[in-house]
Each structure stands twice: as structure tokens, then as C-alpha cells.
């Protein structure tokens, strides 16, 4: 009974979440032949080419940074290991568009700064390569976290076996560690690639024409929302391909589950090597976090005298509560989905659930429209009904409220939560379920007393990732928020798009620090294997 209710609820929620995505595809019912001809003749090839290059570049960039850092942390020595471990996660709190604004401001040609001049000679940061660098610097922690844990899982048994078989570390990495960790690495790279596909802020600021900027251009410039949706559906299809690849990898990965997580005794290395590794890791952290944050702080401090602290407090409260509410809703829904999939592995719900993952790569603005229009329709229907009974309108219920905003975040970020929770749920073997039942306990007890405590780290990290992403999210927030409702991201954007980088610094740095608070809490869990 209960589980049937669960299944129906999941189905209803799943359909609600995929509707905005389906809505994007529904745009094909309108014909825009003339526009397509124009686009084919002009910019389409450039959009596609740049998008491919960007995604590929970010894939390679995050792979390199994520895997190399994970390797250094697991299989080599460095100084201040504890600090570096924390530092490698910090770039997650940094929105790509803000790091882009910051570096642009720092490397401004007008500044008489020798470093800026020197870098300016190599090339302009505001380019495709620059966008790839910026995105890679803030997205690599996704790859790093997953790879780090995968490397550690294999470290004890396989690394020692390989050493005993006379393999060098390089051979071990290429022949054993990378192939074994491939599913984890790929999952991280896929996340980063999807973020890159959905990115608008960075590429728009750097003047790189991609599918997302094309979508905005068509929507805003031509006022053709449905044509823009058609373009967005191409983007969603690209994501679908990435996801299918990732699923394919994951299916293979189940054979590689290995419970041993003993700590591998690190072999000793020379001081020079240790310093080199420390230097490398520190520079990654510096580039992805320390340097831009310092710059932002310097700019922000110049604006502190002009800041209205009452307004700032409201802003802080609104931003944090929005993040917390969304995080709680999203992990609840993700948990519901994960259980429905576990109890009904053969149900077609699986496919519904998989489609919801697409939301992650659809630009926020497209999701916002996909959420807004159906909810507006729903509101109109309810009002019509209400009018027929009470002869008055009650106004908007869903659109223009927090509900719409949270729904949009749910569509966009459910995938992050699902990935985290799904992976953790696999670890709760079915024999736990049997053991609980045989001890005369209900499924509720199974969930509350056994699964929930075991899943807690995963839930917490899912919550934090969603929380941080909601803090960073801009386009959907901008379009869907209620009256008098602001977030740091909206504020930072308003100043930055008005080309007032210095004024944007305070809200921008606030996003970063607000994201750091919860990040601190998951640090323990991510590195929990090391006691």
C-alpha cells in the first residue's frame, strides 16, 4: 500500500519535473523554417563548433586537473596535506561567471600591471580558450572528488599487488588505476561537461558564440521564444548523449565495486618531489580560488563604506533560506526517486527518472520558461474554476512565487542529488533490507534507522552541492523570483552587467563565502574514510 503510494507520488513528481524539459521539445510544433535557413546560412556552424570545442576543452581541462590532483593526493606526498585537501574543493563555491569577471578585471589592459601585460601578450583571456580555462578551474573539483575516492578504493590492494609485480607508478596509473576508476572519472567529467554546456555567463561575457548565447540572442534579439526553444532542444539532445555514455560506463562499473578502503602506506619521496607536488597543488587552488577571491575582497573592501547593511542582511537571509529550502526539497525528491527505482527496478519510472537528469544541462533560462508557462496556465485554470464558484479571482498561486523558483531549481539540479544518493544507496546491500524485515521491523524502520544513517553523508553532500548551485544560479532566479526578492547572484549580475565590476564584488564574494559554510560540513564526509 505504502510503496504503491510512493510509486504514484514519484511518477507524478517525475512527470512534473520532466514537463519543462518536454516543453522545450514541444516547441517543434511551431514551424520556423525561414529562421532555420537564416541560421544555417549564418551562425549555426559557429555555435555548434564553439560549443563542441568548449565542452571538449572543459572535459580535457577538468580531467587533467581533477585526475592529477587526485593522483597527487592519493599516491604522493605534499606539505600541509590537510589544508590542500580542503583547498581543492573550494573552487566549487566560485561561480564561473564571477571568476571570469574577476580575471578580466585583473588582466585589464588599462592597468599598468606587468603580470597583466605579460599575460596579455600570450593571448586575450576573453576568448574560447579563456572560457575553457575559467570553467575548468571551477568545475574540476567534481572530477577530483569522485576520482580521489576511486583511487583510494583501489589504492591498498591493487597498488600493492602492482608494486609486488614490479610495475612502476606510471604503469600502475595507466594500466590499473585509470581503467579501474574510469567510471568515476567519467561521471565527474560528464557533470563538468554538462555545466559547460549550460553555461551562459562566462561565454557571453567573453564574447564566445555558443548554443546558449545563440538561444539568448534569438529569444531577446528576435523575440522568438519558440525558435529559441528549438535551439535549446538541440542542446538538451547533446546532453542526452553525454548522459547515455555516462550510464553505459556506470553499468560496467558495478563489477568494480570493492569494499576495501584501507589506507595505503605511502612510499617515501624526496623533498624536492614533495615540494614540487605541493607547489603544483597550491597553484591550482590559487588560480581557482585564492587569487580571484583576494581580488574580489580588495574590490569589495573599497565599496564597504557605501554598503547598506540592512539591505545586505535581507539579501543574505533571502539567499540562504532559498538555498536551504531548495536543497531540502530537492534531496527529498531525489530520495523518493531513488527508493522508487530500488523497489520497482523494472518499472518505466526508471526512464522518467533518467530524463529528469537532462535538466542539469539545460540553461536556467530555458527551464525558467518551461516552468513559467505551464504554471501560468495552471494558475489561469484554477482561477477560472474559482471564479465560477465564488465570482472572484484569487490571483497567481504557483507562478511568481517561491514555488515556481523551487520547481525550476528542482528541474535543474535534481541530477546532482540523484547521483550522490543513488551511488550511496547501492552501498546499502539488499541483505540489510532482509535483515530488518526478519527482525520484525517495517520498511519505515528500515529507512529511518538503517538507510538514513548510512545515507547521511551522501544526503549531506547532495544538499551542499545543491545549496551551492542554487546560490550560484542566476538566469532562472532572475526570471522567476517574486516581488522584492533578491539573491547575491542577482545583485552581482546586476552590477556586473552594468559593467560595475567593483560594486559587484561584495555580492560576488558573499556567494563564495556563503557556499563555503556548508562546504565545510561535507569536508569531513568526503574525506571520511581517513580517520
Amino acid at each position, binding site marked *: 500500500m505504502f510503496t504503491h503510494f510512493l510509486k504514484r507520488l514519484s511518477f507524478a513528481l517525475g512527470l512534473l519535473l520532466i514537463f519543462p524539459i518536454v516543453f522545450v521539445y514541444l516547441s517543434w510544433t511551431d514551424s520556423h523554417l525561414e529562421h532555420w535557413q537564416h541560421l544555417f546560412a549564418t551562425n549555426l556552424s559557429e555555435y555548434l563548433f564553439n560549443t563542441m570545442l568548449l565542452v571538449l576543452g572543459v572535459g580535457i581541462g577538468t580531467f587533467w586537473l581533477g585526475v592529477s590532483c587526485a593522483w597527487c593526493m592519493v599516491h604522493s606526498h605534499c606539505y600541509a596535506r590537510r589544508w590542500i585537501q580542503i583547498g581543492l574543493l573550494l573552487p566549487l563555491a566560485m561561480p564561473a561567471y564571477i571568476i571570469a569577471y574577476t580575471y578580466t578585471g585583473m588582466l585589464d589592459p588599462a592597468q599598468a600591471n606587468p603580470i597583466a601585460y605579460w599575460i596579455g601578450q600570450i593571448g586575450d583571456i576573453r576568448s574560447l580558450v579563456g572560457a575553457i580555462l575559467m570553467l575548468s578551474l571551477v568545475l574540476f573539483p567534481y572530477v577530483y572528488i569522485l576520482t580521489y575516492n576511486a583511487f583510494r578504493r583501489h589504492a591498498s590492494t591493487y597498488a600493492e599487488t602492482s608494486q609486488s609485480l614490479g610495475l612502476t607508478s606510471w604503469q600502475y596509473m595507466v594500466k590499473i588505476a585509470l581503467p579501474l576508476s574510469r567510471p568515476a572519472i567519467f561521471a565527474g567529467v560528464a557533470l563538468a561537461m554538462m555545466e559547460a554546456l549550460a553555461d551562459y555567463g562566462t561565454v557571453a561575457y567573453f564574447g564566445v558564440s555558443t548554443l546558449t548565447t545563440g538561444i539568448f540572442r534569438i529569444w531577446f534579439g528576435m523575440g522568438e521564444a519558440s525558435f529559441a526553444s528549438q535551439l535549446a532542444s538541440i542542446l538538451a539532445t547533446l546532453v542526452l548523449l553525454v548522459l547515455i555514455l555516462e550510464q553505459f560506463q556506470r553499468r560496467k562499473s558495478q563489477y568494480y565495486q570493492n569494499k576495501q578502503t584501507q589506507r595505503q602506506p605511502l612510499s617515501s619521496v624526496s623533498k624536492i618531489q614533495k615540494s614540487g607536488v605541493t607547489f603544483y597543488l597550491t597553484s591550482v587552488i590559487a588560480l581557482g580560488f585564492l587569487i580571484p577571491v583576494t581580488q574580489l575582497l580588495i574590490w569589495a573592501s573599497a565599496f564597504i563604506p557605501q554598503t547598506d547593511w540592512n539591505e545586505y542582511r535581507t539579501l543574505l537571509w533571502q539567499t540562504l533560506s532559498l538555498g536551504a529550502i531548495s536543497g531540502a526539497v530537492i534531496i527529498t525528491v531525489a530520495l523518493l526517486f531513488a527508493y522508487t527505482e530500488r523497489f520497482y527496478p523494472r518499472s518505466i519510472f526508471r526512464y522518467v527518472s533518467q530524463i529528469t537528469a537532462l535538466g542539469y544541462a539545460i540553461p536556467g533560462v530555458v527551464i525558467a520558461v518551461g516552468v513559467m508557462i505551464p504554471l501560468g496556465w495552471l494558475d489561469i485554470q484554477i482561477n477560472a474554476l474559482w471564479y465560477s464558484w465564488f465570482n472572484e479571482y484569487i490571483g497567481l498561486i504557483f507562478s511568481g512565487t517561491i514555488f515556481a523558483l523551487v520547481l525550476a531549481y528542482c528541474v535543474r539540479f535534481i541530477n546532482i542529488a540523484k547521483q550522490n544518493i543513488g551511488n550511496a544507496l547501492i552501498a546499502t*546491500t539488499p541483505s540489510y533490507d532482509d535483515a530488518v*524485515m526478519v*527482525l520484525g521491523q517495517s520498511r519505515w524502520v528500515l529507512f529511518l534507522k538503517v538507510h538514513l544513517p*548510512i545515507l547521511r553523508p551522501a544526503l549531506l553532500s547532495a544538499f551542499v552541492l545543491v545549496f551551492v548551485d542554487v546560490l550560484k544560479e542566476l538566469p532562472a532566479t532572475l526570471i522567476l523570483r517574486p516581488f522584492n526578492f533578491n539573491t547575491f547572484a542577482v545583485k552581482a549580475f546586476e552590477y556586473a552587467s552594468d559593467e560595475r565590476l567593483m560594486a559587484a564584488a561584495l555580492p560576488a564574494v558573499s556567494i563564495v563565502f556563503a557556499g563555503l559554510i556548508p562546504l565545510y560540513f561535507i569536508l569531513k564526509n568526503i574525506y571520511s574514510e581517513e580517520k
Partner: protein
Amino acid sequence: MLAVENLEVILGRDKIVHSCTFDLLAGELGCLLGPSGCGKTTLLRSLAGFCQIAHGNISINDQIVSSTAQHVPVQKRNIGYVMQDFALFPHLTVAQNIAFGLHQYEHNALRLRVNEMLELVQLTQFGDAYPNDLSGGQQQRVAIARALAPAPSLLLLDEPFSALDPALRETLVTEIKAILKASKVTSLMVTHDQSEAFAFADKVAVMNQGAIEQWDSAFALYHCPKTRFVAHFIGEGRFISGTDDGKNIRTELGIFAKHNETYEVSKTTSIEVELLLRPDDLVFASDGAFSSIIQSKKFRGSHIMYELAVNGMEERLLCLTPSHNDFAVGSEFCFDIDIAHTVYFPK
């Protein structure tokens, strides 16, 4: 206590278990023994109520818990179950794990019961430890304590020793048996290891391809196997050909009296049969009636197992003899035959 009648279990399209009938008396320790894939775990899981049955019925304490019409849910069967991987909850302490099934106990009673259980499995000082801090054998005892804590009327154990170090198994089997006997719980274990089964159980069911071939004491399974599969699977031995003339089995190694009939014999014609010779049926004697050449030998501590070739016979024989009778391979070996139970099957 436990009665299983003509049980049949179908999973998907495959008939995993069929024609199983057996029963256990209160306090008895039973064992399902068979090669892997014979359906013994499925049978155990259907007793627990994890899977529905297709035919027959299962009753515990004279109450039908599973039949085609009825299925008492797992939670209401009052059984204990020890998983192959123990399934100890890693985030709970040993004491909390044991207390998990004691949801109807009050605080003090709960504490008492948990302590009682810890004492039973001799882990009193480990109540606050986490499962991951314990050795395999200790984890297993916790799993058993957890299963026994709610005082189940029946305890089911799924390959409880397979996850453990083989060197430990023998002592553990005896320890667990003592614990179960002490708590007087009716138990049924699944295993593929016959020495475990013999050490543990009062009664053993030998299973093959989903069916129970024989449900008997260990002694009977060894000495009076009812099917050729049981004769092969349990213990060692070799078959030699002979003929059944109605009263005796005639072979090249002599004439042996029949004890019981395992098949219908017509009175007029004699039947070609195979007679089972266990290694202990052959007794070394320097002036023995039969002479043979030693083909190979295996030293087993107190005994030596010889493989022998008797002149003029195709079949090789086995003989287990005290190890002071030490001979080289290729030398002559004389023996007598002393069969207590004549076991034979038609060819």
C-alpha cells in the same frame, strides 16, 4: 516444529525448488546440504518468507505460514535469519545491532536481554564496539546474537561460515552449535560443506537440482545413502559391479548379504548392480584374502588413504588404514573386506 510439505518455488520461469518434504522437531539442528546452485538458499529464503511459494505448504509450530493461498509476511513469522555477509549495520554498535529486533522491549528489559545475548556469544566486553572493529568470527557471533535476541521460534542460517577463514571454521561450528543448543532454538543451516553439516546438524537434507534427495542423520547419509547422488556426494568410496540374486550381492570380491531393498527385484532373474565400497570397508591385513598393488597414497595424519588396483578388476578401490601401515607406491597391499551396510544401486 517446522514442517515442509511438497514445496515448490518458481522464480521467474525457473523451477528452483520442487518436491521438498521434511520436518524438524523443536530444538533440533537441521542442515540443507548440496552443491552450489541446487536451490538450498532459495528454499531457506522461502521458509523465511522472502519469496512466495508455488506449491505445497510450510508450517511453523503447526501454523501454516506459506501455502499457495496464504503468505504470512516475514515480520510476523517470528524467525531469526543470519545472512551470508552477516548484514551487520555498520553505523550501529554491537549492542545496538543486537537490540535492533527488540522493539517491543522496555528500556530495562532491553538492556538485560542484550547483555544476556552478549554473554551467550561471549562478547560482553564488545557491546560498544562497532562491527568493523571485530574479527570475522566475532561479527558472526554478533549476527547470531542479533538473530536470537527476539527469541525466534526458528533460526535460519545462510552459509554462515563461508565468509570466514577456513582454519577457524571447525572450532566456530562447534561453538555456534553449543550456543544454539544452549538457547534451545530450532535451527536450519544452509551449506555446501559436508564436514560443516556433519559437525553441526542432527539431521541433514541432501539437495540436488532443487529437490531433497534424502533427509536423514549424518550416519545414515553416509552408511545408508538412498540415491546414487547421495552416495557420491557424501563421503568417499568406489563402486564395483556385481549381480543381485535376490538375497545377496555377488561380486568378484565376494558375496554380501542384502539388508534392505532400494528397488523392486523380480524373483526369477538376477539384476546387474553396483556395490559401494567405502574406504573403511577395506581392512588392512598382512594375510588378507585379497591382494592388490598400491597406485597412489595420501597421507592424512592418523590415517593413510591408499588407492588400490586388484588383479583382474577394472575398478580402483580406496582403503583408509592407520598410518603406521606405511607402504610405498607400487608395492603389494593385502586386505579383508568388512561391510556393515551393503549399499548398491542397479546399473
